[in-house]
């Protein structure tokens, strides 16, 4: 293990870091007028980073040669898979931003830079094989995210969202750090492999505390119940492109990170945390669904929907098998497509003055005035509800298949039954859009980028998405195998 190899392995992070620093300078000199150019360049940087990670994924990179900096970092197929999803999500949030911020004259040059910085942090999170790398990645992402949430400085809701996210995020970081120090104290090392080795002999109470605290800190990031409280407020308050980012990339990063910590560091002690994960999964499904039902704001509804979906993904984690991990990864990919599609629809709904329409009641009868948009929204909703033949069904199918194959039939049955509660509020959106008399609020032309994102994600979540299953299934299995090879 030499430095040159390590540096080669972190090439995507290097690319993004250099790009973000250069773009920061451009922003400093070019001002907000350069914002669009910077956005384009930032997307280019993300594409470049994506190209750099792709070989590791396609080649199924795993094992010792993917490990960099003396076991602190790993660039295996698992990390690559997550990174590609993260980069795509970040790119989406960049692409949809100008049309939204222009309306408020707030398209600032810092936005793309912050997104890039967040992407670096997320990339580090999914590659972390050491508690410290984990923490640095997580904080790097979080700090960028706090700023992004409050990006519309003049908007009270946005500022509130940023502040809430920051304070609660700090609390979660504290919990995470406390858990990490406990783990370090009892394991004597911060590397995942070391922790796993030291815990192989059995768990002391202190180490158990450590595990619980670490999971609690991570649960905040993936907004699993009961650490989900920030989600609706932040989703609603943050500017919609930022919400698009929050709903996708950090979810992927935190979920992948949680998987790696759970499997690589605490994998031998699965029995200790499985029950907590099962509880968090079911609680997230139920609370997410219940919370969503009463919502009148579609962004809040999407926030609860994300909590609900996280619950389903956690079912895959609770199984703690390669199949479960692979199912979760698959679910994440579909989830990214569904969220991107959903938020693209939200971005495209504007009233006659160009102000965003977020109230469900104002979307009434959308199918008469904007049939295409309504159809896309309906597809997203049915897909999120997991109704076949929408592709969202496949994600749920895989995690529950993993659960059944892993012998957790009760979990699968309860989880599936609870998904019916969730179906209710997705149906409610369809009802408002299709059954109700038109409110005729949504007007105006949509941005071409929004349309592109929407069409792209709708193709993925449509039944055509099933054509991807073979290829994507292979990738997720490779990635899951890579994760397990580190044991």
């Amino acid at each position, binding site marked *: 293990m030499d430095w040159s190899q390590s540096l080669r392995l972190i090439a995507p992070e290097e690319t993004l870091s250099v790009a973000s620093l250069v773009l920061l300078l451009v922003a400093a000199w070019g001002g907000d007028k350069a914002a669009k150019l910077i956005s384009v360049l930032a997307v280019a940087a993300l594409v470049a980073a994506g190209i750099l990670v792709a070989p590791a994924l396609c080649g199924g990179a795993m094992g010792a040669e993917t490990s960099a900096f003396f076991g602190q970092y790993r660039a295996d197929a698992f990390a690559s898979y997550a990174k590609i999803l993260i980069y795509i999500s970040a790119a989406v949030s960049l692409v949809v931003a100008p049309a939204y911020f222009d309306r408020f004259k707030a398209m600032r040059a810092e936005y793309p830079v912050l997104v890039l910085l967040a992407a670096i942090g997320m990339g580090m999170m999914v590659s972390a094989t050491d508690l410290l790398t984990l923490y640095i990645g997580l904080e790097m992402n979080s700090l960028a995210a706090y700023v992004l949430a409050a990006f519309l400085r003049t908007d009270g809701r946005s500022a509130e969202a940023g502040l809430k996210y920051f304070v609660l995020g700090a609390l979660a970081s504290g919990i995470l750090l406390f858990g990490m120090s406990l783990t370090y104290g009892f394991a004597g090392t911060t590397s995942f492999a070391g922790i796993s080795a030291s815990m192989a002999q059995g768990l002391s109470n202190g180490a158990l505390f450590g595990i619980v605290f670490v999971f609690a800190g991570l649960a905040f990031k993936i907004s699993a119940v009961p650490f989900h409280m920030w989600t609706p407020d932040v989703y609603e308050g943050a500017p919609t492109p930022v919400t698009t980012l929050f709903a996708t990339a950090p979810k992927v990063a935190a979920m992948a990170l949680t998987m790696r910590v759970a499997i690589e560091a605490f994998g031998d002690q699965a029995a200790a945390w499985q029950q907590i994960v099962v509880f968090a999964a079911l609680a997230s499904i139920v609370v997410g669904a219940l919370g969503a039902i009463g919502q009148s704001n579609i962004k809040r509804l999407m926030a609860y929907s994300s909590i609900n979906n996280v619950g389903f993904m956690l079912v895959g984690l609770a199984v703690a098998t390669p199949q479960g991990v692979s199912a979760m990864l698959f679910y994440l990919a579909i989830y990214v497509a569904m969220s991107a599609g959903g938020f693209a629809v939200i971005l495209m709904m504007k009233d006659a003055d160009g102000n965003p329409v977020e109230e469900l009641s104002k979307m009434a009868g959308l199918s008469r005035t904007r*049939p295409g948009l309504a159809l896309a929204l309906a597809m997203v909703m049915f897909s999120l509800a997991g109704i076949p033949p929408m592709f969202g069904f496949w994600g749920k199918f895989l995690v529950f298949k993993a659960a*059944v*194959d892993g012998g957790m039939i009760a979990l699968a049955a309860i989880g599936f039954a609870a998904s019916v509660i969730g179906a209710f509020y997705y149906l409610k959106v369809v009802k408002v859009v299709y059954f109700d008399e038109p409110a005729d609020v949504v007007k105006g032309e949509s941005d071409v980028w929004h349309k592109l994102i929407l069409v792209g994600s709708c193709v993925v979540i449509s039944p055509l998405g099933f054509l991807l299953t073979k290829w994507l299934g292979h990738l997720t299995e490779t990635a899951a195998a890579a994760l397990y090879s580190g044991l």
Partner: protein
Amino acid sequence: MSGFPILSLMLLVPLAAALACLYLDAKSARTVALLATLANLALGVVLWLNFDVGGAQWQFQERHELFSGFSYALGIDGIALLLIELSVFLMPICIGASWNSIEKRVGEYMAAFLLVETLMIGVFTAQDIFLFYMFFEAGLIPMYLIIGIWGGADRIYASYKFFLYTLLGSVLMLVAMLWMVHTAGTTFIPTLMTYDFDPQVQTWLWLAFFASFAVKMPMWPVHTWLPAAHVQAPTAGSVILAGVLLKMGGYGFIRFSLPMFPEASAYFAPLVWGLSMAAVVITSLIALVQDDMKKLIAYSSVAHMAVVTIGLFAFNVQGLEGSMLVMLSHGLVSGALFLCVGIIYDRLHTREISRYGGLAINMPRYALFFLLFTMASIGLPGTSGFVGEFLSLGGIYQASSWTALICTTGIILGAAYMLYLYRRVVFGDQKNADAAAMADLDLREYLMVIPLGLAVLWMGVYPESFIAPMRADIAALDARLARAKPEGDAKLAMGKEKPAHEEAAAHEGAH
């Protein structure tokens, strides 16, 4: 015909037409929908003609491996064939029923209906268990939209109830399917049908499937979504709901529950009998007091479906064939009855029975067809209703004479509520001037009711046409069930013929 993917074509025609309808104006959407459904009907005829009765169990098979143990596998046996024929037969009639009565968003409506057709045929042709599930489940979406957009006043409640109720039933089934595939290592339905699951586990699997099919069927007491959905759905929606979608429950029993879990089926047979008995009596009585025509027929559907379930769980050929025939007959008859309601609803825009009366005077031809379908619903010999119900009840008598006794009251009660309905609507005085002014059937309506009437009579007079294709499949199923068959209480035995000389001796003795 071998090699030609006719089943795929039958899935594709309505699907393509559905997509086209989304972009067409009202007039052309109607035409396209009608042509597509007629084309599918023609394909259905071709399918039937080419079906080799007595040939291989599975015919017209297509199979393409898609991914991870999940394949696009189609194929039909006689049972599926008949249900497909029923679907393609009813579809043009549904389009016809919606011709004038649907005025808003016609393109979307036709698209939804054509999508329903694709999914129905998909359910009956799927040979991959997950493919089946996808078709089974996906049917909820267009039906939800049909009820919710084009339904009556209380359509929102009804559409939610329909969707969530049936969804809750089927998610449990999916878990069971996952387990089965995990254990048996295949998703191929014909293989699964011969796989022997551990009887202990069968209990759970059976219950999971039961949750889905019982709701879909619907069996008492999970039937309450049906009256709501039927009443609120537009006429054609009711026709297809009663005609085909309910049959998916019965098809599920006959395709999954019975052959895959014979022991569990036998174990739970008394439960099914009990629920069926309750359904027959309770829902028939409820039908008797309805003031809403559609609700009345909806409740009568529950009662008829109970006759299907007792036939299925009679564990003999008679019962199985009977329940299949009841399903087919009920598909035609209840569809026709909903159509009859729709015909007068289009004129007067009310389903209230008391708003009609004396229609025999101003609508004599309508009265004739309504009477035919009423009689078929009652199960008059010579109509389709009789054959199936007789066989079903005959079948269950061998297994449980009490069940047969109670369920037979359903026939009497059926006559009561149907004739009572008919008397109030068609006979009596012309109490309401607007009802008295309604015109008799027009050409479009003739074209809908005459084929239905002929089919009802055909099945009543010569049921062999419908029994022949499924005879071998039913026999195979019966053989499969033989090992778990519960001992009947009727203990039927062929009587011995009295020797001729004995009779003569008695005669002599009298002298």
